[in-house]
């Protein structure tokens, strides 16, 4: 019998509800999240039905016009398409690159710590710091074109940033540069938890490196892959920094994303806060829907209790 139940009985037969003792601990976070974050979300939803430039300017009720305008906009749909392309490419590069480097770092190689630092450094460097370098690399007289010329492939040199056909590639490549390091970090930790005896058993059974990677390592790091899938999709949906810093969504909206569209509407002279709010609400709905689907589809079924054994990390520690 709990203390609360005892106290309830002691009060002369009158039913007394237990004190909600946790409320005082929950309250600050509750007020912050509900009072600030959710208020902002609901307020954005409210604004999305108006034409409003902010401050004391007149608010005009538009009904669903802002949403109709968004769905009728070719820029909106191309932003969605760019988001999907960006997501697929960055996720693929992150998984392949992350797994490759993590697997390599778990093997015995010289200067492993140095490599780890080199791979991880792009994750901690802010896009704003790297943007000038990326622009220099991809501009008409930049590093990529110089390399191509030096390799005798000058015919491939072009204005990578300033072309509709290649601007999205530039933004995607800049993102991949940092994404691989993040993928590496998670996969490296995840692979460290794999039971080393399983790997030994597979080797005894004659499995080669690729077979082990495909049939043992990848299934064991599935949870990490699902987490990366969700994180990448959310990143792609709210992407702003790299496209804005590198191309500002251009030229001619060829590297436009929902994030840059929203910012452009808010920061422009005309300050279309209502339309920007409608775009934000659409983004929110997509983000929630996709996260729910990914979480539902990706949730692992209850697994049998795994036999305790040595992990790769234990093995490496022992080896050291």
């Amino acid at each position, binding site marked *: 019998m709990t203390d609360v139940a005892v106290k309830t009985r002691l009060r002369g037969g009158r039913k007394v509800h237990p004190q909600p003792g946790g409320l005082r601990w929950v309250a600050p976070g509750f007020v912050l999240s509900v009072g600030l974050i959710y208020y902002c979300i609901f307020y954005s939803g409210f604004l999305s039905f108006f034409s409003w*430039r*902010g*401050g*004391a*300017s007149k608010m005009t009720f538009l009904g669903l016009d802002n949403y109709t305008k968004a769905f009728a906009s070719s820029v909106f749909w191309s932003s969605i398409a760019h988001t999907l392309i960006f997501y697929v490419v960055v996720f693929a590069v992150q998984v392949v690159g992350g797994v490759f480097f993590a697997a390599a770092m778990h093997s015995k190689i010289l200067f492993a710590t140095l490599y780890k630092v080199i791979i991880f450094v792009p994750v901690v460097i802010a896009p704003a710091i790297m943007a000038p370098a990326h*622009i220099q690399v991809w*501009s*008409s*007289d930049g590093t990529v074109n110089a390399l191509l010329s030096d390799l005798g492939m000058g015919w491939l040199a072009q*204005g990578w*940033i*300033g*072309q*509709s*056909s*290649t601007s999205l590639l530039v933004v995607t490549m800049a993102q991949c540069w940092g994404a691989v390091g993040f993928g590496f970090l998670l996969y490296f930790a995840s692979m460290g938890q794999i039971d080393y005896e399983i790997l030994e058993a597979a080797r005894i059974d004659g499995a080669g490196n690729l077979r082990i990677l495909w049939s043992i390592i990848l299934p064991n790091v599935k949870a990490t892959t699902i987490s990366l899938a969700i994180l990448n999709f959310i990143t792609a949906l709210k992407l702003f920094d790299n496209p804005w810093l590198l*191309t*500002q*969504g*251009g*030229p*001619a*909206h060829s590297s436009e994303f929902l994030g840059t569209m929203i910012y*452009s509407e*808010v*920061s*422009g*002279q*005309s*300050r279309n806060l209502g339309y920007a709010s409608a775009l934000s609400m659409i983004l929110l709905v997509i983000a929630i829907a996709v996260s729910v689907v990914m979480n539902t589809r990706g949730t692992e079924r209850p697994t049998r209790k795994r036999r305790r054994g040595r992990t790769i990390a234990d093995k490496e520690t022992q080896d050291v």
Partner: protein
Amino acid sequence: MKSRLFAAVAASALVISLAACSSATSAQAPAVSPATSGEVSWWGWTPDTPVAQKYIAAFNKEFPNIKVTYKNYENVDYRNAITPALDSGTGPDIYDISPAGGSPETWGSYALDPSSFAQTTLGSDWQNKFGSGYVKELTNSDGKVTALPLGGMTAGFLWYNANIFTAAGATLPTDYTSWVTACQKIKAIGKTCLAMGAGGQDTFPTELVHSIANSVDPAWFLNAATGKAKWNDPQGIEVLNIIKKMSDDGIIPKNVLDNGQYPLANEEFMKGDAAMVQMGYWYAQYSGAESAKTAMTSAGVTNPQPFVQMPLMFPDVAGKGNGSAVFGEADYGLAINKASKNVGAAETFVGWMTMSKNGQQNVANAIDLIPALNGVEPDWNSVKLVDQAQQQPAIAKLLSSSSATTQTRQWQTTDTTLKAIVVAVQQVLDPTIKKSVTDIAKQMQDSSEASTVGK
């Protein structure tokens, strides 16, 4: 001694007139006496802090007991900072308002109407004492004057590096053919002909379109901006075709979409790598020896040797004899926050900056703005140029033609339309876009939004 006496008389006159205006109706002017002491804060995206500090230092020579604190923001940051500040009553005492993008509508409601104040200071025809249209451009749709103009800005012309033209043996272009010829000679010595950046969402490409449009049909651009003509009219198609031809013939550089006019074109010109650049009157400041050095250093030049930069009228690229008229409007005005607790001191500062000869002389001498008050010109004895003999008459002539402009720059063009023009220019200049110019012009029309301003 004489100048001190003049300053004292001017200051007294200003304070007296400010005192007189305090008795005006509260709807138009603050019921607070102007002050000769106090503290005021001023927020703006322009001028740059060093220029503002010069203005304030000159003001403090006449009003030493008014402390003015200036806070400079980047354009976008300014728009995002000023609204909540004004809304919450914690905004600055004085803030910038631009005529462009409907700013008088958005932020004018927080400002005091300075009409009676100005009328008392400058007389009943006070609006005519300012540059043509400046006050109207800072008036909102309710007829309220939201700010007093500090200066004007014009664009639609080029700046050229005289040293490069001399080295290349090129002559200044006046039409399309001579422009192509000049570019060939300039490229032959390894320099870029016209530095230009049209990437991103920067609205500079609209100035190129406006300039070419003025050569095609001087009335068409503003007619299209205000819905009296269409962007895909024959004039619009001709303008876009000229831009495409300029790219094909090497006037417009191939890297034009790599970045915006700032930093791409500005840096290329300031480094001395390009012979020409399209910039507005604000670029005149870099004709000054010290300003040129600073700008060149900012562009990455380690040991700057200022070159002679000169204004050049935009060539008559359509060849119809129209030339290409410059266009301009009030650049910005100073608004007094009606929630200010220092209205008196704020009035004194705004009045001195915008309506006094001394204040406006500072603006004129910085040669980055056209002084708002008519009749004020730079004091050339106190403006040190790289080559006084060459540059002074050219800038004075530009100032004169700028003051006489009849076309507005962005006041009557909506933000939506400016964006549509930028996209159209990018599509024309992007070699991987296979759309016809006619289709691009149609898309420009479909994406635009006619302005009702100034009708």
